[in-house]
């Protein structure tokens, strides 16, 4: 089998690190960049369309973005697995911590469970809505609500994953990630607990497009994600290339 040899094609790893880890470390922001384009520019679910519109308004939304919704979400269906891969990378780094592997598996499990309501449900709902534009508006309205509520409101599913991540970082003696990242992960939990309010309000600051439930939470999430990308790179560089493989 012909293999692309590391000497010919490889990311720079001047200060150490393992090949496969480096590939995944670069994949992480690449996948999120594509994901960002899909959710923001193509499918328009971030920032979310308003909850306080009539069924006619929702039908109008699907009509307006019909093509890009179909392109974006079918693309996401194929790339879906990339999310699991990014979670796997974080779990790998967590396994290098001194606290043992249980937390890593907890993180992996928690994040994976979250992905189903997290974006698979909105993908299917919106594709279904776009599939038959002349469907009964009340049904289209249901698909809109179901998609939006699951996408934005399911954030709580990730809370436990952030919790084990925070605990693992705080107890880790190998200093894979700095302690402040544990605290940023706790902020994530707080914003996600607040996000539960969006199931109660269809307008105002706590609705799924509200200043508190959405905008503030997006800022915190961006900080968390940005920090994680930088820290993954640092962790990959800090690992010696000939360190024994993890079991």
């Amino acid at each position, binding site marked *: 089998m012909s293999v692309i040899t590391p000497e010919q094609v490889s990311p720079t790893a001047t200060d150490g690190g393992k090949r496969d880890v480096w590939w995944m470390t670069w994949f992480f922001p690449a996948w999120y960049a594509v994901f960002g384009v899909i959710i923001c520019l193509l499918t328009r679910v971030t920032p979310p369309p308003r909850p306080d519109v009539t069924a006619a308004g929702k039908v109008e939304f699907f009509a307006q973005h019909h093509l890009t919704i179909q392109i974006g979400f079918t693309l996401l269906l194929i790339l879906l697995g990339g999310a699991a891969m990014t979670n796997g990378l974080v779990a790998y780094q967590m396994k290098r911590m001194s606290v043992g592997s249980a937390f890593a598996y907890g993180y992996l499990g928690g994040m994976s469970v979250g992905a189903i309501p997290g974006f698979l449900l909105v993908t299917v709902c919106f594709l279904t809505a776009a599939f038959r534009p002349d469907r009964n508006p009340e049904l289209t309205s249901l698909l809109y609500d179901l998609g939006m509520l699951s996408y934005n409101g399911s954030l709580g599913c990730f809370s436990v994953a952030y919790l084990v991540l925070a605990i693992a970082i705080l107890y880790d003696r190998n200093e894979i990630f*700095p*302690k*402040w990242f*544990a*605290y*940023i992960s*706790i*902020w994530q939990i*707080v914003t996600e*607990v*607040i996000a539960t*309010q969006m199931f*109660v*309000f269809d307008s*105002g*600051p*706590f609705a799924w497009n509200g*200043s*508190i439930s959405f905008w*503030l939470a997006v*800022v*915190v999430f961006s*900080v968390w994600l940005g920090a994680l990308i930088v820290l993954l790179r640092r962790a990959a560089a800090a690992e010696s290339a000939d360190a024994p493989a993890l079991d």
Partner: protein
Amino acid sequence: MPGDINMWVMVLGDMIIFAGYFVIFMIYRSMNRQEFLLAQQHLNIAIGVTNTVILLTSSWVVALAVQAVRAGEFEKSTRLVLAGGAGGIAFMVLKGYEWASKIAAGHTNSEMFYSFYYVITGVHLLHVLIGLIVLGVVVRELRNPAKRRPAMVETGATYWHMVDLLWVIIFALFYVMR
């Protein structure tokens, strides 16, 4: 610097996030002044004042605990931290009672003022709970001769004082100002 830099990242960041909540609250308040004012009158000011005094006192003894551990008085420091934790528990109990009585009186999420009230005091309560866990860790380490160090108590204290600080502002914005 008191405590470690990682905790200060947490504290400063948390302060910024809460500032965001407070500003958004004020914006909605300014759009619904009369409604908010009327809603405020149903708050239980006795509990509000008591809870504020409880947290201030709890912060006081934790600050004294830091002084004690620096002087090598580990037993005294442990007792002071426990006292601080007791204050935190008392705060949570009173807050729970306060919420229950407000809900029983019909003030729920459906009123805008109360939707802010429950969310912001709720997030604060979550911070108190986390603070109790932090203080618990501090007590455990103080009791362990191999692990007791001032930096640990300072770090926990910094977090606990932040919880107190945020409450003082919540008290002013929700209970007192008009």
